[in-house]
């Protein structure tokens, strides 16, 4: 084993730190502090995306030929560490981690040329149209249909959990193009060049945290060109599975989790308890915080082993295990946040949570975000394949 510290890596760290200290605007920093979801406040995170794109750092994990940074995995981890230390808003994943890499693998040259630059530059936001009211975990039973008509498809039906659809200018979606044979065999993957189309209606859904993050999208005889299809007609299920690989794996979670734990530790140092003294000295709190430290420690170790190419992470179940570990520790962490915030977390402060709001928080930023973060993070074990589905996949990976 060899853990050698790489001096060039420390130089790189300094370069990253310098840029991240100076480049974000105050509004972007505020958006980072007020991020209570995977999806940061839209306007500021897209502005930040465009700043990073101009620096050439928007897509560290992309191949260089498509505008990636060419950083080693170790450098990417250092970047993530420095990024999270500063509470910066995470770039939205739909373009960079989902449809972008998918197009690199399966898109036509024309599709790549048309869409990848806008994704990289932060000009476009793509919403994901997968789930339907009747098709969640059993995604292949989706019914939103596309019927060929000349050079076009006519779409009818609806999609739900289309994150930030009300901010989106583009959409990628799964549609049913055949009802014959296995249900997986009649699905097609489509790119929608725009969402302001006749017959397409977007309805934001207010979440548990009081803000519209998710949407429902209705299609009534919506006409789109067939040139937006990725892969062959009725082959969309294998296209979608390819995309899930990008959605579930490959990202580094432990630096962000560590940052949240630090915030909890700081807040607990001045929260008093009914037993006298402060929460930070309470044995039960210490035990629960310690559990988080230990769990995040193991996740960090697992991620570092993955970075080093260790066989433990070259498992078919790696993305599913990472998803379960990260999301479940996120939920544990979010519970502890609400415990530390206490009653202060129970005031609805939707207005104060808006970036640039003239309404000040009743107390500190910690108690402002604790409850929305907790509520929003209930979704982590539901989205991107519920954790029950992930456990099915992990169980399937176990050799007998």
């Amino acid at each position, binding site marked *: *084993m*060899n*853990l*050698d510290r790489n001096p060039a890596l420390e130089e790189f760290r300094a370069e990253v730190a310098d840029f991240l200290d100076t480049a974000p605007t105050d509004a972007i920093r505020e958006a980072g502090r007020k991020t209570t979801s995977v999806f940061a406040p839209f306007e500021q995170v897209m502005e930040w995306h465009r700043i990073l794109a101009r620096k050439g750092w928007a897509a560290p994990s992309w191949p260089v030929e498509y505008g990636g940074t060419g950083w080693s995995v*170790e450098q990417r981890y250092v970047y993530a560490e420095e990024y999270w230390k500063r509470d910066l808003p995470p770039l939205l994943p739909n373009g960079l981690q989902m449809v972008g890499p998918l197009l690199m693998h399966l898109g036509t040259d024309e599709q790549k040329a048309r869409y990848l630059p806008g994704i990289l530059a932060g000009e476009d936001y793509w919403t994901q149209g997968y789930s339907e009211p009747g098709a969640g975990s059993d995604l292949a039973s989706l019914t939103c249909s596309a019927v060929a008509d000349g050079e076009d498809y006519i779409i009818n039906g609806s999609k739900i959990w289309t994150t930030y659809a009300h901010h989106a200018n583009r959409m990628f979606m799964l549609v049913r193009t055949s009802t014959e044979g296995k249900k997986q065999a009649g699905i097609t993957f489509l790119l929608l060049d725009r969402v302001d189309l006749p017959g397409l209606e977007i309805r934001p859904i207010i979440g548990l945290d009081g803000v519209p993050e998710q949407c429902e999208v209705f299609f009534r005889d919506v006409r789109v060109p067939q040139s937006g299809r990725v892969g062959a007609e009725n082959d969309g299920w294998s296209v979608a599975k390819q995309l899930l690989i990008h959605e579930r794996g490959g990202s580094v979670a432990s630096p962000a989790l*560590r940052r949240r*734990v*630090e915030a909890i*530790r700081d807040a607990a*140092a001045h929260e008093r308890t009914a037993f006298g003294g402060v929460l*930070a*000295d309470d*044995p039960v*709190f*210490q*035990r*629960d*915080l*310690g*559990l*988080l*430290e*230990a*769990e995040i*420690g*193991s*996740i*960090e*170790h*697992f991620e*570092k*082993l993955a*970075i*080093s190419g*260790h*066989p*433990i992470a070259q*498992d078919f*179940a790696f993305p599913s*295990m990472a998803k*379960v*570990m990260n999301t479940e520790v996120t939920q544990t962490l979010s519970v502890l946040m609400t415990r530390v915030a206490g009653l202060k977390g129970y005031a609805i402060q939707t207005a104060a949570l808006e970036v640039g709001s003239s309404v000040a928080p009743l107390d500190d930023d910690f108690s402002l975000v604790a409850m929305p973060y907790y509520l929003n993070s209930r979704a982590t074990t539901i989205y991107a394949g519920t954790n*029950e589905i*992930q*456990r*099915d996949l*992990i*169980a399937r*990976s*176990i*050799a*007998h």
Partner: protein
Amino acid sequence: MDLNFTDEQRLLADSTTRFLEQTRDFHARRAQLAEGVTLSSAVWGHLAGQGLLALPRSEAAGGPGGSIVDLVAIAMRFGASLLTEPYLATVVLAGAALEAAGGDEARTLLTRIATGEAVVGFAHEEAVSGAPVGQIETTAIGKDGGYVLSGLKPFVLAGGDAEELVVSARHDDGIALFLVDTATAGIMIEKFVTVDGRGAGRVRFDDVHVPQAALLARDATSLIDDVVADALLYLAAESVGAMDALFRMTSSYAATRQQFGVPIGSFQTIAHRLADMKIALTKAHASLIYVTALREAGQAGPADLSVLKAQTGRLGRTLAEAAVQTHGGVGMTDELAVGHLLKRILANDSLFGDAELHLRLLGSKTGVTA
């Protein structure tokens, strides 16, 4: 960054496993324990013959200068094979303390440990597992040019078989280490066997006179902390080895055991439990590998060690209890390794501070973030 075992480390570990399986499989181990034997001369002699009883010793101390990674590689196999012999007590704890203390007597004893001739115990921890070294209550008072030891060490591994003990005791303002012959007048040892099949003893020192030469090290707090740090890695490695063995047994049992006409692994409840076992094993394994690499690089701090000890303790327990549950009735019998592996994991958890203690250390202000 290379976090893999070398080919040599793998070969050494594989040959250790092979030997243990051939010389003393699970049934032979059971028969041996039924007769109260925890130290088999065949097994101990083989370990000596392979050079394993000197593995972590530097060349100056008569060993090959094996690293913590070497030690972890074989400890994983010791855990899976449920080794009963006093490797932890004699080689990892007492041996390391003797090497760090130095001196002619220590060197001679290390040579006899290496050949398998001498079994030595490490009589350090007292009633409170995981307590700071400074809380040791056994005393050593200077008298007649020597020392008088008084106190109780209630759980000394190899305590019943050892000819000598490395004993920690309060002396002047610090904690010192002494080397004490177990035949010395005033030492009372009640021999017992631990739930996971290791020999141990409850050792009482009742005005035990030892000569001046018995003093191994004055102000030995940091020496002891360093020895215990390696022991934590050894214990974690044994537990991860045991977890891996349990996971394999349980997944294969779930695939073959039929109820309601189908393998029980086809039920989602069981499948998800297996998934959770795999996640638990993966986390514990990842922490073991990474913290071992940190320790080798001299970068493992107290928080890293606490993460490892806590995770192998609590994830080990969860996984092992799930293994018993999945095996059902037969999981409850002494005739299957499952319960023995559970007991090994629990015993390892209890040594040098259990998971709950290490979690609190991590969560308290003094337990710094990693």
